């Protein structure tokens, strides 16, 4: 009856049965991997914090989700849009799944000039500043590591 009424009045109210199903899905997802929702959020923040150290990430479009086919198969998937560094458009975000290695590879192959520029950067040109801030930070970190390694060798 409520169904008919809601149809007549053009309302499509979701029944509590559907709510029950959604809530169950959510609860079971966490039960099955034994990781409560809050801890999951904490983990996502940590993962992202690590990636941001190396890449420029479009944080608003990050999606890290737990996919569950059934009780025994859970998969963590992440879609993390990463900014591709080109001389023309330094901060253009490009769709790419988390596979950071893939996106870096494509970057190198497609933009030979850029790759050269990066090489120069890493060698010794300390003050060359055409990269966006976060990327610059990451490189600075890399250089820091390089120097300390060099120190240890000598």
């Amino acid at each position: 009856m409520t169904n008919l009424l809601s149809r007549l009045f053009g309302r499509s109210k979701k029944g509590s049965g559907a709510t029950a199903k959604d809530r169950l899905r959510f609860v079971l997802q966490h039960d099955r991997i034994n990781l409560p929702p809050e801890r999951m959020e904490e983990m996502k923040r940590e993962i992202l914090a690590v990636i941001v150290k190396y890449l420029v990430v479009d944080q608003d479009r990050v999606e890290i989700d737990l996919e569950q086919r059934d009780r025994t198969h859970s998969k963590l998937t992440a879609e993390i849009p990463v900014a591709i560094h080109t001389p023309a458009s330094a901060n253009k975000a490009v769709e790419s799944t988390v596979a950071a290695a893939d996106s870096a590879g494509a970057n190198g192959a497609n933009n030979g000039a850029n790759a050269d520029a990066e090489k120069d950067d890493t060698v010794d040109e300390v003050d060359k500043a055409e990269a966006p801030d976060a990327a610059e930070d990451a490189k600075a970190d890399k250089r820091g590591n390089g120097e300390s390694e060099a120190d240890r060798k000598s």
Partner: protein
Amino acid sequence: MGGKVVTISSGKGGVGKTTATANLGISLASLGKKVVVIDADIGLRNLDVIMGLENRIVYDLVDIVEGRSKLRQAMIKHKKFDDLFLIPAAQTRDKMAVSPDDMVKLTNELREDFDYVLIDSPAGIERGFRNALEPADEVLIVTNPEVSAVRDADRIIGLIEAADKGPGKLIINRLKADMVKKGEMLSSEDVFDILGLTIIGIIPEDELVLSASNSGVPVTLNMQSKAGMAFNNVARRVIGEDVPFMNLDENLGIFQRLVGLLNGR
């Protein structure tokens, strides 16, 4: 190996394990099978009253395990079926009085003379559940179309699989077809989507189940009862018959069915 040990479990209490066990026992017996039902809920004995056998108890499961009673002495024959017996739980002890090994030994003895040994598992996931699970060849999981019952079912399904007793089959108890139609209750399809287990029974909500437990005459013995018919169908599926699921909409009024029709169902 002889007979088959079927454990009826649920995780959550109050979803209808004992009712299901009693009715399956009766149905299997009425199908000509030799059946023992064991109440494994030590300390909270109940299967006896559901089956109407409470005044015949002399010995119990713990008496057998501790050697005070011979197996046959403690088995109570059903009033109506000569090949249906109950082994009651002890009422004054706790679950630690019996071990999973005790249950394996006991059921192995019973397998020789019976076609089916049904074990009514206690609620929870501790010792009592382990006792009921250890000897099982097959596990039936009873749940209600309701968030907490399904959640607990999922938990024990995981434990059953971890113990290599899986995958188990599902009995969805107390389904209200009219509420499902209105979208106000999880449907059997929803429960299947979530738990992913084969459904062996869908039991409609039926007031006659309470009347049956009031009088100690399980509802399968009542030909008028839809729940009774549904339990009987479960028993037939247990013995391997291919029984189609009942149409649970039949008891809806003509008006509701008209509404269903208008809604394109």
